[in-house]
């Protein structure tokens, strides 16, 4: 056996990406600089954006109403551009817990949450979340009572969903900035709850 060190040949999709990008640049349709800019912009979008929106909805009832009626316009009012898709915010209550999945591919509210985690794109999560959501949520450490209805949102077309989790108890009087720190990415997908106050490391 030849020792190839840590070298691995490119995978099919990596090779496809390099080939397509180089061709587009060579044909003068895009520039390397544009590609870099787009990648940087993609990396700059992180779940902190979504957390800001959630924290705002927790402290401002008018904003919360606006967000639930028209999440695209509500986010734009905070200066967050929502290009070419419609955003829908779904509210968790003591009676209803929402969770988001895309069974067909991996549609995800990137504009608010950034790059999706690998498990969100896995066949396991995508197929089982519609079939046995309670079991999947338990695997994430979230055990809901039978009295809480689970509402699964299969993101199949032009909408993108974000969960508005319930504000944790014991956060009365907190500022938006402080509240935003409790809002995790997973709580906005619906597979967990926000961090309880005081448990943050």
């Amino acid at each position, binding site marked *: 056996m030849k020792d190839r060190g840590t070298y691995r040949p490119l995978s099919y999709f990596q090779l496809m990406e390099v080939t397509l990008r180089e061709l587009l640049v060579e044909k003068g349709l895009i520039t390397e600089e544009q590609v870099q800019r787009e990648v940087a912009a993609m990396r700059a979008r992180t779940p902190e954006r979504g957390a800001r929106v959630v924290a705002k909805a927790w402290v401002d009832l008018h904003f919360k109403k606006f967000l639930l009626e028209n999440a695209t316009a509500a986010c734009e009012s905070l200066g967050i551009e929502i290009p070419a898709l419609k955003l829908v915010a779904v509210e968790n209550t003591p009676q209803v817990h929402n969770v988001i999945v895309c069974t067909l591919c991996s549609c995800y509210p990137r504009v608010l949450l950034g790059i999706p985690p690998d498990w969100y794109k896995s066949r396991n999560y995508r197929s089982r979340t519609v079939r046995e959501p309670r079991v999947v949520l338990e695997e994430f450490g979230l055990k809901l009572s039978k009295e809480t*209805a689970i509402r699964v949102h299969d993101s199949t*077309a032009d909408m993108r969903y974000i969960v508005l989790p319930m504000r944790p108890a014991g956060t009365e009087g907190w500022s938006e900035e402080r509240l935003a720190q409790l809002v995790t990415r997973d709580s906005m997908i619906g597979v967990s709850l926000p961090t309880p106050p005081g448990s943050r490391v």
Partner: protein
Amino acid sequence: MVPARFKAGERVKVLKSFPLGHVRTPFYIRGHVGEIERLCGSFPNPEELAQMRDGLPAQPLYRVRFRQKEVWPDYRGSEQDVVEIEIFQHWLEKA
């Protein structure tokens, strides 16, 4: 733009049809009956877009709510559990 035929609260049935190509109606929901949750607006038909055509006239898109117990006969969660799916109007008929 195609006019919207359904209103929130109406019962609809998803066509049990299996065309080839890029279709955004999941297999598991075809043939099932649900309730219109809301009209999301109208969007170019993705089945046409995938063929490099313009997808026009735009098709009304709905969020349709299905009871999990009806979708999966052996479903083990609560009676209240639902799944909501975006479905284009041309995939729906009055139930």
